[in-house]
């Protein structure tokens, strides 16, 4: 494993600037997740590191070596795609062994066997080694696809939404597994997704991509609690952060230049109004099962926050709403220290 750096990398397709002056270092043993919507440049960034695309500008350095002009095969990277692409005529064992059988590697059968068993155990597919890959469930196939990348020990693993084609439950299980495997192997990982939960739960650092640019990079907690601007603040959090005009609530004194206040559940104190004064009304309590959302109207604005599963709020309740250390943003959308 090794440090991997992108230095001022740009890539355009026709008129579309897919990646725009991107500089990023993934440290040895680090799990970096790039998060952004479709078209943000996530997959192009991965393909640039893999060597499947050539940058227009900038360089890519793996373990101190400039690989910008090298072919994918000479870069020492392993790629896991969104759609598992297994060899259908081979067993799970042979699929996992395949990357090790390349003539350039000269592995003995014993070494291959040892490695395949080790990885199969890691991705929990060791009970199905003799099955044909077509006989597996979706989750098992994707575990084999991830395992096939893991049998090698490349400088970096590149993963393009490897969990997105799986159902919610399996995705939840594999999230935890993938993070555990990465931590156990201390592997270097660049992972792209549009799923904020995957980014929050797995990353050592999250990079927020928008229109080909890296808007912010930091730990999940930094990105969540200290977003650099409105764009980043809106990317993370369920329900989404409430963005309110600075003067919506009385008795708040935002710093000079504040145009917008960002308020998540933890920034709001909501109580039933007692003696006449109220700031808003409860529109409804949305029971989503694992989470319950409280929908409020305050002035002309709608607010949504998390509420207790056994909340006593009911539709029509008058409430007082107080802010506690919320996020402040200026007219350009950048954050101002509170």
């Amino acid at each position, binding site marked *: 494993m090794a440090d991997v750096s992108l230095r001022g990398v740009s890539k355009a397709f026709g008129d579309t600037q897919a990646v725009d002056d991107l500089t990023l270092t993934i440290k040895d043993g680090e799990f970096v997740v790039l998060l952004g919507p479709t078209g943000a440049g996530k997959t192009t960034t991965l393909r640039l590191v893999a060597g499947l695309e050539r940058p227009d500008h900038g360089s890519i350095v793996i373990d101190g070596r400039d690989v910008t002009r090298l072919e994918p095969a000479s870069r020492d990277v392993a790629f896991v795609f969104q759609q598992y692409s297994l060899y259908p005529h081979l067993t799970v064992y042979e699929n996992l062994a395949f990357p090790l059988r390349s003539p350039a590697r000269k592995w003995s059968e014993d070494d291959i066997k040892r490695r395949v068993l080790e990885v199969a155990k890691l991705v929990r597919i060791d009970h199905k080694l003799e099955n044909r890959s077509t006989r597996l469930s979706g989750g098992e196939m994707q575990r084999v696809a991830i395992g096939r990348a893991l049998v090698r020990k490349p400088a970096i693993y590149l993963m393009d939404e490897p969990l997105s084609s799986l159902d*919610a*439950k399996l995705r939840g299980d594999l999230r935890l597994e993938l993070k555990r495997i990465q931590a156990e192997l201390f592997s270097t990982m660049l992972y792209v997704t549009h799923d904020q939960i995957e980014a929050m739960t797995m990353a050592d650092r999250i990079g927020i991509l928008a229109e080909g640019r890296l808007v912010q990079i930091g730990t999940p907690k930094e990105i*969540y609690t200290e977003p650099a601007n409105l764009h980043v603040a809106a990317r993370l*959090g*369920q329900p989404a952060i409430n963005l309110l005009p600075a003067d919506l609530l009385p008795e708040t004194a935002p710093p000079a230049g504040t145009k917008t206040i960002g308020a998540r*559940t933890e920034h709001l104190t909501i109580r039933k109004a007692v003696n006449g004064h109220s700031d808003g009304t409860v529109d409804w309590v949305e*029971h989503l*099962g*694992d989470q319950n959302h409280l929908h409020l109207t305050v002035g002309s604005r709608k607010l949504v926050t998390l509420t207790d*599963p056994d909340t006593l709020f009911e539709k029509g309740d008058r409430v007082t709403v107080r802010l506690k250390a919320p996020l402040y943003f200026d007219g350009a959308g950048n954050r101002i220290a509170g």
Partner: protein
Amino acid sequence: MAEIRVQNLRKEFGSFVAVQDSNFVVNDGEFFVMLGPSGCGKTTTLRMIAGLELPTGGKILLGGEEVTMLRARERDIAFVFQLFALYPHMNVRKNMGFPLLAQGMPKAEIKSRVEETAKLLRIDHLLDRPVSGLAGGDRQRVALGRAIVRRPKCFLMDEPLGTLDAEFRDLMVHELRELHNRIHATTVYVTHDQHEAMAMADKIAVMNHGVIEQFGTPREIYDHPATMFVADFIGSPPMNFLKFGGGLQKGAKEIVVQGAAVTVPEIHEDFAPADFALGVRPEHIRFDDNSRLRGSIYGTEYLGTTQIVAVETADGMVKARVPADIRLSVGEPVGLAFNGARLSLFEQASGRAVRTNAREGVQKGAAHG
């Protein structure tokens, strides 16, 4: 709009039973979701309501009228498919008006109907734009508009949001529900996504292997799952199951799990000794050093306001949802305590829920009305 009544509906494909004697009623104006994994029979049920598939047995009544063997176009329904096909060479207005034109409606009436519908969907400013230049969300709205404009008896939707990004899907879920609140159209919606079901449905039918495992409001289904399948299918992470043995006595309020006494809702039926499971939702777990139910931290998942904590116990992994500010480290020993009033009990062999005072009044199984 109209009520949909499904009676003993059955569909066989050769020796395979896709739908087994389903019974349910969708009330006029209700948003009804059929939820289940692929192959559970939800789409087949929808296609029978639509008239795209003829049942092997049973009846379908639409607004009191039997339509079981009628052709699709004789049923006055609107079917919204997963992939919306708009006519690319027509503008928004023409796309939306097309179904009415095909019915032979006068031009002036089409115009007012299209404009009224566009206003409802908040796309009236786009009416004269070509559909090719529209953003994804607006395209979905136009496709919905084309279905709504006919004012059919009901809407049938088969995973209409299945192909969208997570973020955009959340937006459309709220928009669809808001639209429903405005027009109150009887809707049957098929999905395998529990979040869509919980966020939109008035009533949910959870299906598995052609059988309706439970029919009820989202809250009933989440709080009082009728079977272990339902408990496991709904919730993210799903309900935890902790095994325990012995018999159950009517009136008991305590069970023993892994050597620890656990307070549960009062049990309302007797069981001979067998294998049982205690069902615990992740948000009903808290850490308590005094608890005799022990485990160690396997991993944590930070979600901002809350975190999901995986705890390894003698009986497998248990996942808890707790506030994000509780600090925990991997390997740390913890005691687990539960919110007793919110626990479920299941008989392992049948998978069905044990009757308790928390469950009284909750409908069991497929039967409804």
